[in-house]
């Protein structure tokens, strides 16, 4: 069974390889290559999970080229890493299958294979962001991920999305250079690139009390860089344009997966590089908490104020990411669990929402404002149902996936003194705001039209695949919501490994 340890590496390399060979194919074939890749690699990730579940440590590190530190660079897998790899693969798979019809409309015939190339690159980058165990690999793949996702954005015909892409690129450039500086600082202080070594050195340094400022600055730079990329509160302004104008498949992947990849890397940085102890002592967690809460509120308020369905969904991702940062900011294991589960719930829900929104706007010829979209759910039933499911999940109605993280957040909120009140209040208020904009939209799309514009009735026989995909997504959402214990216990086990074993 040892060879399973190669799987993480293989997935990365394989997807890089596929991205190259996609160039050789027409779009259809390229798509199937991508499917193939995704299926294979998800099987691998799954087997890695299984392996770690039943191996005694539940963790292994894999040194590429068998050089030792400080020269070699390595990837490692506990339980969380392969789990999120699997999650991302599934989400990407579903987004593509659900979104390719629309893709063929949005992207020029000749450019479509590039789209799949970029998807494969993104996939490779995400895999390595999940598995990486040294800051060098981390940096490289952050950049690859950024480039690929920018390209995903640019692929659409609409010039608006070009502008959005420009914005996104600039933001993420700033982000990545901040991360780079942070990494460099870390390196210069510790002289190491591998997580475990950096960790030990930092612990030692912190104990002696030397270099605390450089360390704090490095941590701050890395966190703020990744925060910009993942769209934390003050830096979330690029989100609506980006997600709102891209093709649904792309927005689904970007909002559901890419931002989550950065966040997962951030978690790695905090818990495996800096160490929770120092993270809490540095007081950065409070900043994250505050920004997270602000993000929840501000994102929702902006979502209420917009009248464009995809923009609304995009702003809501800003709010949802706020939840995650709030969880990180609380800094306890329970909060971390909640944050991880929030990642799961959001990645499962958001792509569904984007796809559904796309499907709805198809019925009115691509219009996206609420007045035109009224009663569109009657013209495109699957999208209507999917949107309903997604909206309810985001609001946090029990039996949907979105409910569980809210539950966990509020459980983890107790016992933090005044923070308890802040978190509980924030949860309640943001729920209300979610209700306002999501369910308002829900009622709208099901109530009769007020403006008369040409509408085409999209019968689900015409969009079989899409229908199947959204139904599958909804079912997955429900199952996760109804029976969350397996995932939770996996996370609990995984978090122990994640924090303690190096």
């Amino acid at each position, binding site marked *: 069974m040892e060879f399973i340890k190669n799987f993480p590496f293989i997935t990365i390399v394989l997807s890089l390889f596929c991205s190259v060979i996609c160039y050789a194919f027409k779009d259809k074939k390229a798509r199937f290559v991508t499917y193939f890749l995704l299926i294979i690699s998800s099987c691998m990730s799954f087997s890695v999970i299984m392996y770690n579940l039943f191996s005694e440590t539940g963790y292994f590190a894999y040194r590429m080229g068998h050089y030792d530190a400080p020269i070699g660079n390595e990837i490692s897998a506990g339980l969380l890493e392969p789990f999120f790899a699997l999650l991302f693969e599934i989400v990407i798979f579903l987004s593509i299958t659900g979104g390719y019809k629309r893709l063929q409309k949005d992207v020029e015939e000749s450019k479509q294979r590039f789209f799949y190339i970029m998807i494969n690159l993104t996939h490779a980058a995400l895999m390595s962001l999940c598995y990486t165990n040294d800051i060098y690999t981390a940096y490289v793949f952050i950049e690859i991920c950024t480039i690929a996702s920018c390209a995903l954005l640019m692929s659409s015909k609409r010039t608006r999305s070009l502008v959005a892409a420009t914005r996104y690129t600039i933001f993420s450039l700033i982000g990545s250079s901040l991360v780079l500086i942070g990494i460099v600082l870390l390196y210069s202080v510790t002289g190491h690139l591998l997580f475990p070594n950096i960790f030990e050195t930092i612990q030692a340094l912190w104990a002696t009390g030397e270099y605390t400022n450089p360390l704090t600055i490095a941590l701050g730079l890395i966190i703020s860089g990744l925060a910009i990329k993942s769209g934390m509160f003050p830096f979330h302004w690029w989100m609506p344009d980006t997600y709102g104008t891209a093709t649904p498949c792309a927005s689904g992947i970007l909002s559901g997966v890419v931002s989550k990849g950065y966040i997962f890397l951030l978690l790695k940085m905090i818990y495996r590089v800096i160490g929770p102890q120092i993270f809490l002592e540095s007081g950065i967690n409070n900043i994250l908490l505050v920004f997270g809460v602000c993000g929840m509120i501000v994102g929702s308020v902006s979502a209420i104020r917009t009248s464009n369905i995809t923009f609304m969904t995009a702003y809501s991702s800003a709010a949802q990411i706020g939840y995650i940062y709030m969880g990180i900011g609380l800094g306890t294991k329970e909060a971390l669990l909640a944050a991880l589960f929030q990642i799961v719930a959001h990645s499962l829900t958001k792509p569904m929402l984007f796809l559904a929104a796309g499907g709805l706007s198809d019925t009115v010829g691509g219009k996206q404002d609420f007045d035109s979209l009224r009663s569109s759910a009657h013209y495109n039933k699957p999208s209507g149902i999917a949107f309903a499911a997604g909206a*309810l999940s985001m*609001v*946090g*109605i*029990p*039996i949907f996936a979105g409910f*569980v993280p*809210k*539950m966990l957040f*509020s*459980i983890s909120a*107790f016992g933090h003194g005044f923070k*308890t*009140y802040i978190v*509980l209040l924030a*949860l*309640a*208020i943001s*729920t*209300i705001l979610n*209700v*306002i904009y999501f*369910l*308002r939209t829900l*009622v*709208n799309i099901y*109530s*009769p039209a*007020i403006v008369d514009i040409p509408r085409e009735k999209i019968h689900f026989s015409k969009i079989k695949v899409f229908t199947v995909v959204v139904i599958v997504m909804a079912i997955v959402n429900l199952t996760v919501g*109804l*029976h*969350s*214990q397996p995932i*939770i216990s996996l996370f609990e086990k995984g978090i122990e490994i994640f924090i303690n074993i190096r």
Partner: protein
Amino acid sequence: MNELFLITPIFLPIILGAILFFIPFKNQKQRNAYVITSLILSSVAVWLSAFLVPDNSLTILHFTNELTLSLRLDGAGKIFSCLSATLWPITAIYAFDYMKHEEHHQMFYCFFVMAFGTTMGIAMAENILTMYLFYEMLTLTTIPLVAHGMTMKHNRAARKYMIYSIGGAAFAFAGVVFLIVNGAGTFRLGGNLVTVDNETLALVLYFFAFMGFGVKSAIFPLHGWLPTASVAPTPVTALLHAVAVVKAGAFALIRLTYYAYGTEFLYGSWAHYVVMAFSIFTIVYGSVTALRQKHFKRRLAYSTISNLSYIGFATTLMTPAGLVAAFCHLVFHSVIKIGAFFAAGSVLHNSEREFVPQLEGIGKKMPWTFGFFTVFALALTGIPPFCGFFSKWYIATAAFATDNPLATVGVIALLISALLTAIYMLSPAVKAFFPRENAEIHLDEIKEAKPAMLIPMGICVLLCIVLGLFVRIPVEIIGEVLGI
């Protein structure tokens, strides 16, 4: 019969309702037959489970190891479920005739039947999480009923209802989680909350939860949705906004106070007085506003607000007597108010008149309807021997028994509101029967309501009188099933 049967009254109507949506009915008769049979089946299931199912808990599924979706039909649940189970089919009969002139029945009846199941879920929830779940479900299943008219007005009403209700639940959620974390999630009379490390937090969250669940029972600052929602077709307003939904809110308050937090923890705390003050204020506020309403159904809606706070007030007395009184008024008010709404609805249906001043002399044309309405008015005002009087009696006696000054204030509020009730409920009746001689009235086209509408009203009237005359029996039953 073992507790597994409890699934039936909840999921049977939900499934039947869902099926209903897809059956292509040839004509209204078929659909009505289907609806009434499914409702009666479900009610039978409820009664059966009320009498035959042992008082054991049944866990349907585990969200996580601690959080379970589990049912159990204890005394309180029995009262509430049986009440709804009785009134639901009656309303259905009324609805058949009323809804003739409305559109897309399919959807309406689908959700109408499904809401029954969710209400049962609230009644039969064993732990607070389950109750919360069905509470949300109830909101979702009833939104389409409110939005039924599908105009902008209905749309807005539905949105308001939704935001208030789910928002309130969001605030209650904090309290819910607190209870679960402190192992008081499961309902038990007297509560399971033994010791908490942070009492302030506990009380603050109780207050949140009370106000949050109080949204459905229209406690003062959060009552706005109820009058707005009275744009819904009358069967809905009658059933949901006089019985199922609002009473679910009241029921949730009772669960929260007596079964989760426990009165000995709350009694005498600041939260106790605050919530009581809120209910007292709402009692008066509701009546005063009802007095100022010209729109017939809105007036009834505001009166509902005030009466719901009678229940709230009785609940906040936090004594066994208070609990009995609360349930007493919960039952009696349901019967009275649903009847009153029926009457208002049949006026609206047969004469298209929705404002009180337009009712001048209409009693001549619709003697039965307004005869019934007068009875409901008297009962709601609390004129003996109608049942409304006795619930007031119980609340008042319970209040005096606590010898808590605020409670005495509450009784005074009760009586003030009773006076106002007399004014706003009797004036339509007086108008209808004794038109001013020089008033210009055009009643030619108006006809008396059809028996399909009158019979439900008649049943309610009978209930009012019988419950009043033999009030001993229901009260004894309530006390007995509550185990007091």
